[in-house]
């Protein structure tokens, strides 16, 4: 089995002594769709940041797509994020002034890919999430559900090894939220490895695997 992501004994202590993560070990295999679930303050956001290489652990090892994160510098880490990791955020974080297509193409901006290829890949990614006909719309002309689909397309466009989705339904009504979860399942069926971080037990129960966080510890894995 090839683990896309492996954490071994990871802890994170913030200045001032706050222990956000306490000896967390986990593995995510290629092709998995997993949830990290826990109440706010349980350390799941910190876990997301460490898994996504946005933050380094105080101790323990993080391996992502075969790379030991601790051995990589800022540039190599940024390149790893650019090519192998996709992020989906609760607030979408789309750029207001540019079209959905260009927003998606931004997912390839830092991979030294020429603009024509970026736009071509972005078009395909938009088709995959089912809103190809909205390609030339600006974010403020799209519904919340459509915006999150654009953000998901942006996370997929570089064909990453793993996608982290941070409360992907948090800013959506229940119907759009359900549609987004359905989309994540479809993408996972097509082979994309996805980790969803959420406090929503109901959402977590719809996913094949649930890792439960409490007070910085991994307390359940099912």
């Amino acid at each position, binding site marked *: 089995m090839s683990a896309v992501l492996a954490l071994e004994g990871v802890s994170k202590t913030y200045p001032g002594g706050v222990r956000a993560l306490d000896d967390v070990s986990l593995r995510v295999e290629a092709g998995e769709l997993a949830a990290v679930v826990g109440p706010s303050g349980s350390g799941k956001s910190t876990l997301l*940041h460490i898994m*996504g290489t*946005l*933050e380094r652990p105080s101790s323990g090892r993080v391996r992502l797509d075969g*790379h030991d994160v601790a051995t990589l510098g*800022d*540039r*190599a880490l*940024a*390149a*790893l*994020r*650019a*090519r*192998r990791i996709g*992020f989906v*955020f609760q*607030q979408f*974080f789309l*750029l*207001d*002034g*540019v079209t959905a297509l*260009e927003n998606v193409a*931004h*997912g390839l*901006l*830092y*991979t*030294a890919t*020429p*603009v024509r290829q970026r736009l071509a890949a972005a078009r395909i990614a938009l088709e995959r999430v089912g809103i190809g006909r909205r390609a030339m719309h600006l974010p403020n002309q799209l519904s919340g559900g459509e915006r999150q689909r654009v953000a998901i397309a*942006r996370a997929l466009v570089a064909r990453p090894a793993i996608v982290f989705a941070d409360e992907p339904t948090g800013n959506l009504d229940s119907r759009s939220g359900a549609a987004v979860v359905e989309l994540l399942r479809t993408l996972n069926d097509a082979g994309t490895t996805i980790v969803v971080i959420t406090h929503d037990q109901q959402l977590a129960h719809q996913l094949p695997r649930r890792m439960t966080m409490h007070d910085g510890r991994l307390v359940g894995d099912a």
Partner: protein
Amino acid sequence: MRGGLLLGDVLRVAASGLRSRRVRTLLSALGIAIGIASLVGVLGLSASSREGLVRQLDALGTDLLTVGPGQTLGGEDTTLPLSAPKTIARVAGVGRVATVRSLGDATVRRSDKIDPDETGGLSVQAADPTLLATMHGRMLRGRFLNAASGRGPSVVLGAVAAERLGVDRPGRQVYIAGRWYAVVGIMAALPLAPDLDRSALIGYDAAARYLGSERSATLIYVRAAPDAVERVSTLLSSTVDPANPEEVDVSRPSDALAARAAADDAFTGLFLGLGAVALLVGGIGIANTMVISVLERRSEIGLRRALGATRGHVRIQFLGESLLLSGLGGLSGVALGAVVTTVYADQRGWQAVVPPEALAGGLGAALVIGAAAGLYPAVRAARLSPVDALRSA
């Protein structure tokens, strides 16, 4: 694993960053544009005006000298010897020579009904028939004095004198010292001798006959060969009065114009300073815009880091925006300055001169200001940790 940002993308990202904040972009670029426009305008106008003066000097000639009476060591006024014009004409390098004699007490009036004390700032002088040619002058109307008209009650008016007396054509009469004189001609203005513009000129013979004046000159105009001006100028006083050369006053009227050109340069320095202050204020405006921009766009910075931007990519994005902003302002400023220069020079009848150094320097200054203004915000944006940047939203 290789990442990277293509050069074209740096520009594209910077441009789209500015496009999404149009009003702010426009206003901060305007600040730079005004600064650059004033610098280019000042340099262009001073170059144009200097060019105008140089052309005027060339047209008038710098080869005109004047010889007048000076003062003795004791402070008394001297007079020029009667023989002075003849001896001057014999000096090697001297071309035309013409003399005038100021007829101090005489006044020129429109009629005998006007108070003799109201001179209107005009004077009456006796003049040689060769004066017009020596001055390279031109008649607006009529003819200059000749041997015949110089003997009778005929008068030629300078440009200013004609205007003040209300005389616009020959044939009219003016009243000089108790007698009517017929106007035979009106001269065009003589920039090197504004004195003559305000004079009514009569012949030496007429002056002697009607006003009892002497024949010695009070001022001698001398044209020298262009390459002999300096030498002639030093020779003239000893030629006129070998015994007391220091009592003869030799000067070069074109020096006054040259001095004006030098004075313009002094003002140029002052205005350049003011322009630089305007530019500095524009630069502070850009720095302010960029600092606010970084504060507002923390989540965008976080997103870009998550998408794989290095610190360097973030830094160059904000620096690029700042440079683009100032470059935009610089370009419009340079264009505006050139237009202002052209329009103003055109109005003054000068040839518009916009020095290429001013154009290149203006754009360069704008970019330097942009780089300086963008550096601190860019470094701040790059230092932001991705987690902090994302959390702030």
